[in-house]
């Protein structure tokens, strides 16, 4: 089970006062004791879901077990919400089966369904001025017999649900005058008042500020840890990775396998599914997978401007590489150390480069690779990187490639190899390299040297 920072305290909705309650508590602790794989509370079995005959997601297979949070991610309109909505009949189940706590949803009466599953959607309406407490109390509806009044137990459950969601101070306010965020948490309280075994969240934090977003998700996490099965649609991949035990991608009418965030959220998956080149790393604080989008595939210029090699390192070339890729250049790079900011960017951008281990100097193999890449380039840009024994061969490769050359900045102060870098630099300038002061002039310099080169040909 994944850990999360800042647990929302004891999230138990069960009082343990009556025999029925303690039985429920015992059952829930039993569920905690057994491995999470024991009880599948929500199962999609080859489910086709959609609206009035038009299929949105076909053949979905997924099993959400007691005690786990499963996240659904995917592009807008892929059918994540449709999958959730089919459980409660808001979208149609056109084929296959969805099973809730062992019972097919097609034949499950709404009242019984409402005792098993609760839903929190993005849009919550607070029509007419019901007080916040009465609004939450509506969640008790499936538990109160027809013609009977709410019991003390019902009131206790409502009180606790409001406490957990930090909505007690709103209790007497009319629901239609609350902010979107308050209303969202109130809707969660209403859902918790149902005492569900399965919780469906459709982008539960869309209206919430940073504090309440963490509060709601931490709460969800601890509810799952106590035995609830949670299926949640996430827009934010970082949040999905941080709070989910398993993640499944919904894309092009298909639901992928639910696996650990590390296995599902990869640079390749992001490119294929979202059309985004991204850096996928590990969040230093939470240890969860973290995604930093770099550029949109669709934003890359269609026409190819030419091939350019960028000599960088220590992150000095990352913004330039991104910009050149966006403008339609086919970019390559010299040797880069694994873990270097420029290397991370090169991976995300799928820029070809010669890879060397962290902190290691360039070896002959890296030098050969770099030279091959230089040979294929139409022009080479040398960024303002300090040259030491480990990387001066990058400069050597660039200068000796015989390609139009753009040099950024000045060499004094950057030569840590006793004058070798300075002499390569001078050689390049003698050979007709263009020197510019800053990285913003690179595009201009490139068009300049390429035009000049063509004339010289």
């Amino acid at each position: 089970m994944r850990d999360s920072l800042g647990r929302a305290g004891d999230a138990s909705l069960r009082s343990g006062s009556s025999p029925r309650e303690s039985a429920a508590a015992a059952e829930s602790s039993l569920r905690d004791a057994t491995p999470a794989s024991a009880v599948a509370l929500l199962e999609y079995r080859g489910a086709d879901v959609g609206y009035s005959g038009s299929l949105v997601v076909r053949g979905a297979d997924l099993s959400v077990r007691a005690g786990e949070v499963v996240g659904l991610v995917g592009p807008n309109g892929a059918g994540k919400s449709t999958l959730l909505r089919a459980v409660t009949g808001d979208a149609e189940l056109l084929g296959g089966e969805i099973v809730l706590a062992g019972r097919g949803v097609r034949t499950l009466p709404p009242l019984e369904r409402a005792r098993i599953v609760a839903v929190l959607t993005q849009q919550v309406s607070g029509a007419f001025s019901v007080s916040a407490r009465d609004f939450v109390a509506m969640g008790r509806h499936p538990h109160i017999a027809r013609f009977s009044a709410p019991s003390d137990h019902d009131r206790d459950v409502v009180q606790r649900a409001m406490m957990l969601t930090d909505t007690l101070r709103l209790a007497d306010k009319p629901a239609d005058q609350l902010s979107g965020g308050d209303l969202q948490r109130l809707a969660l309280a209403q859902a918790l008042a149902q005492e569900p075994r399965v919780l469906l969240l459709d982008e539960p934090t869309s209206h919430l500020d940073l504090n309440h977003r963490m509060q709601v998700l931490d709460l969800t996490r601890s509810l799952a840890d106590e035995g609830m099965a949670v299926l949640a649609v996430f827009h934010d991949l970082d949040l999905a990775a941080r709070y989910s035990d398993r993640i499944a991608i919904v894309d092009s009418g298909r639901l992928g396998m639910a696996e650990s965030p590390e296995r599902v959220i990869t640079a390749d998956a992001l490119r294929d599914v979202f059309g985004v080149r991204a850096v996928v790393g590990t969040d230093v604080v939470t240890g969860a997978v973290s995604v930093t989008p770099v550029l949109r595939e669709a934003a890359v210029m269609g026409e190819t401007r030419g091939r350019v090699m960028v000599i960088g390192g220590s992150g000095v070339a990352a913004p330039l590489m991104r910009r050149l890729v966006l403008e339609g250049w086919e970019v390559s790079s010299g040797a880069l150390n694994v873990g270097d900011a420029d290397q991370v960017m090169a991976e995300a951008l799928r820029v070809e480069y010669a890879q060397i281990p962290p902190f290691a100097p360039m070896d002959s193999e890296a030098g050969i690779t770099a030279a091959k890449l230089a040979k294929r380039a139409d022009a080479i840009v040398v960024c303002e990187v300090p040259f030491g024994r480990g990387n001066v061969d990058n400069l050597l490769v660039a200068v000796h490639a015989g390609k139009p050359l753009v040099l950024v900045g000045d060499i004094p102060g950057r030569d840590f190899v006793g004058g070798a870098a300075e002499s390569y630099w001078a050689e390049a300038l003698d050979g007709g390299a263009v020197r510019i002061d800053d990285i913003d002039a690179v595009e201009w310099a490139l068009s300049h040297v390429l035009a000049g080169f063509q004339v010289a040909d």
Partner: protein
Amino acid sequence: MFLLTLGLLVAIVSGTAFGAVPLPLSEVIAAIGRGVRGLPTGLAGTVVIDVRLPRVLLAALVGASLAGAGTLYQALFRNPLADPYILGISSGAGLGAMIALVLTAGATALRFGAVPVAAFAGAMLTMLLVVRLANVRGRLDPTSLLLAGVALSYTLAAVTSFVMVLAREQMAAIVYWMMGGFSAATWGYVIMIAPMFVLGVLVPLLSTRELDLMLLGDERAGHLGLSVERFKLVMLAAASLLTAAAVAVAGLIGFVGLMVPHMVRIVLGPDHRRLLPASLLTGAIVLVLADLIARTIIAPIEIPVGIVTAVLGGPFFIWLLVRGERSR
């Protein structure tokens, strides 16, 4: 609730006491007392028992029906501007009732059965049509709902006029009936709509918690365990039954169904356990008093009660619209 019940009793008694021939309160109560015990009642008694009491009771039933229907429509459509009149459902019931009136011109006994049934059929058909028209891709759009209602009530009014032209010899009576009034009230009418009223009110009164859930929207109500489609159909049928009951005996009386639930909601809040019974009582009081005004203000001439409610209700409706615009 107790105050409202008391208010209704006071309204009924004063509605019986005042009129073209004012009668002292003691005599009214004495006459009712004698009538209940089956004793001869004299002239004053005849006025009270045979003329005024059925009229006042009928007004009370119709007022309660309209207010009840308005409350239901407002909850089911989540639209504060919904009422049987504005949604065109009164017009539908009216057309149904009028066709029945014209067809049964000679047979009074038949009329008592045919008119309410036809009114109910007209109300139900109109309601289904309005809902169908306002349904944009599975969602009931509030603006479309009102537009469809208004448009449909114009169309129905045209058809009604056409039927009237065909049945020229009864035109005066029909026009008077359409403007809304209780001048023809008899015990027969009271007995005719009482069962419709009881049925139309009982089912919603037993479903107040479900009506509360409807305020959250169809989807959310479904998540909390309500079989939304079935529930809506039953409640809309109840509302149409109430509308039909009112229209069958009193013609078109506007704005009661709109105003009353609103006023009650402002005072008591949206909880249907209180809102619905309080609306029924208030609707009864309002219409009894409106009818009292209608027959005493320029006595001995009576004006149709529909005029009184429209004069009060029109400005109220505009105020609601303007307030809604501002709060947006």
